[in-house]
């Protein structure tokens, strides 16, 4: 299994210890999602993440949505605190960490809501042939304009206010999945498990690349809080992007663990 490069002793300080960056611009993508542009750029593979320190609140993992940006949905204490920040305020960044989307050839992207954040830079680099984007309602679809200019964008909403009326996985029926070398997925876990089921039925689970969300504390593969069953794969180090065949017999789509390590169902 691929592992992200070791954070060796003597690594640059901005890799291991939070590096202070300034917020240069805040863009409202949807009523619930904002993109924070940072004073520094990071060399990264789409799908890699950074640990974002909101001073005085907490540190949370977030996918880079661009070389100098993170896109955030307000879900908890740390993200709510971020939404109160403005241009000129400081954030601490560790990373980028983990293994991203390793893509060659033709890729299909499937995103649910804020799950579009790690897939957006993949599309901007011209790596996605088709991009399926879903959300509960039309105004919750992020990056819509930029994506439409760069890739074949197809939309689905739960309330039918934009695009197909139904879950984004409905759009898979119109596509020849076997025509894609990679199927890159990020969104709510039940949706991702649904995609994996489709791929399994087509006999191409291994072409699926899924970006997992797990509770992370250290971000560098030491603490084990993000390890998944049954093989103890560290989502922060060997992931967060993991292949479908690795996930078939795993906890993925069934349960996760909270900050204390207690198991929780994923829906």
């Amino acid at each position: 299994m691929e592992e992200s490069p070791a954070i060796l002793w003597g690594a640059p300080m901005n890799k291991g210890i939070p590096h202070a960056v300034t917020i240069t611009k805040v863009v409202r993508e949807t009523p619930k999602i904002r993109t924070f542009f940072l004073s520094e750029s990071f060399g990264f593979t789409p799908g890699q993440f950074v640990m974002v320190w909101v001073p005085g609140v907490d540190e949370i993992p977030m996918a880079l949505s661009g070389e100098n940006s993170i896109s955030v949905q307000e879900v908890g204490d740390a993200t709510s605190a971020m939404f109160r920040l403005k241009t000129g305020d400081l954030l601490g960044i560790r990373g980028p960490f983990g293994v991203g989307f390793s893509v060659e050839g033709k890729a299909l992207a499937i995103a649910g809501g804020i799950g579009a954040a790690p897939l957006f830079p993949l599309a901007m680099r011209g790596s996605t042939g088709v991009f399926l984007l879903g959300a509960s309602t039309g105004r919750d679809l992020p990056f819509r304009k930029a994506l439409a200019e760069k890739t074949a964008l197809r939309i689905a909403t739960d309330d039918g206010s934009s695009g197909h009326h139904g879950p984004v996985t409905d759009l898979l029926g119109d596509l020849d999945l076997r025509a894609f070398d990679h199927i890159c997925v990020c969104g709510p876990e039940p949706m991702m498990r649904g995609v994996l089921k489709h791929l399994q039925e087509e006999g191409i689970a291994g072409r699926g690349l899924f970006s997992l969300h797990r509770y992370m504390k250290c971000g560098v593969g030491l603490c084990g809080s993000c390890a998944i069953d049954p093989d103890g794969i560290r989502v922060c180090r060997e992931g967060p992007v993991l292949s479908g065949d690795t996930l078939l017999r795993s906890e993925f789509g069934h349960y996760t663990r909270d900050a204390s390590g207690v198991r929780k169902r994923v829906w």
Partner: protein
Amino acid sequence: MIRSPAGPVRVGGVELRNHLILAAGILGTTGASLARILKSGAGGAVTKSIGPEPLDGHPGPCLAVLADGVLNAMGLPNPSREFVRELAPLAGEPVVVSIFGGDPEEFAMVASWFAGSAAGFELNLSCPHAEGFGSALGTDPALVEECTRAVKTLGRPTWVKLTPNVTEIAEIGAAAGRGGADAIVAINTVKAMRISVPMGRPVLGNRFGGLSGKAIFPIAVRCVYELYEACEVPIIGCGGISTAEDVVEMMMAGASAVEIGSAVLEDIGIFAKIARDLYTPDGREPGDLVGCAHE
């Protein structure tokens, strides 16, 4: 280097597959993660510290990787009694359960949950960044003795992990010995702090944390050396070990086995890697090596 063990290595009442043990707090939150480390060459594994109630731990940042060490303040996150279920598939494996509590009764209660499944217990009397736990108790010889005795009554092998953040570590080691410890583990992290200059505030969410990794290896060697002179109980060396030569040095100071933690950052296959270098057909007998620097 040392000769390969012909059979299990017995240290502090626990049968290990080799002299290299996963240290507490590293990858020990789930049963699957512990199984992975054992499969990858560790001779034994110590779990994440388990306490009387589930804890989420401190707010982040919880960890920073420094030039030659790791600074952390996790805050003892643990699922408490639910961890019994995590360990069920590991029955019979060399898994030592690390436990903590606020007093001897809590230590004994937590240990009792695992009395049927653990190969042994390691008492966390040394975490430097959890109020009311760890080193809050572990700096008081009388409390160390009481906590050790309380767990030892369960009749399982009992190891006591010590903090280096005391004036005389040998006094604490002697107290663990009086309480009936089967082994002393030395050392836990060294209390430490970094401050972000641009932010003007401590880097860790908890402000204070513990330093591990290469930076503390000389402190660990000194502590093991002092404990070996003062105590009869076998010692397990811990703190900054990342090579086979470090293992040999720790043994010369007086350690019968070692625990490895932060070096997992470099390579999760570190146990097999060190074992390959450590065990040689023409190596010395471990028994001749342990404490030889004292002669």
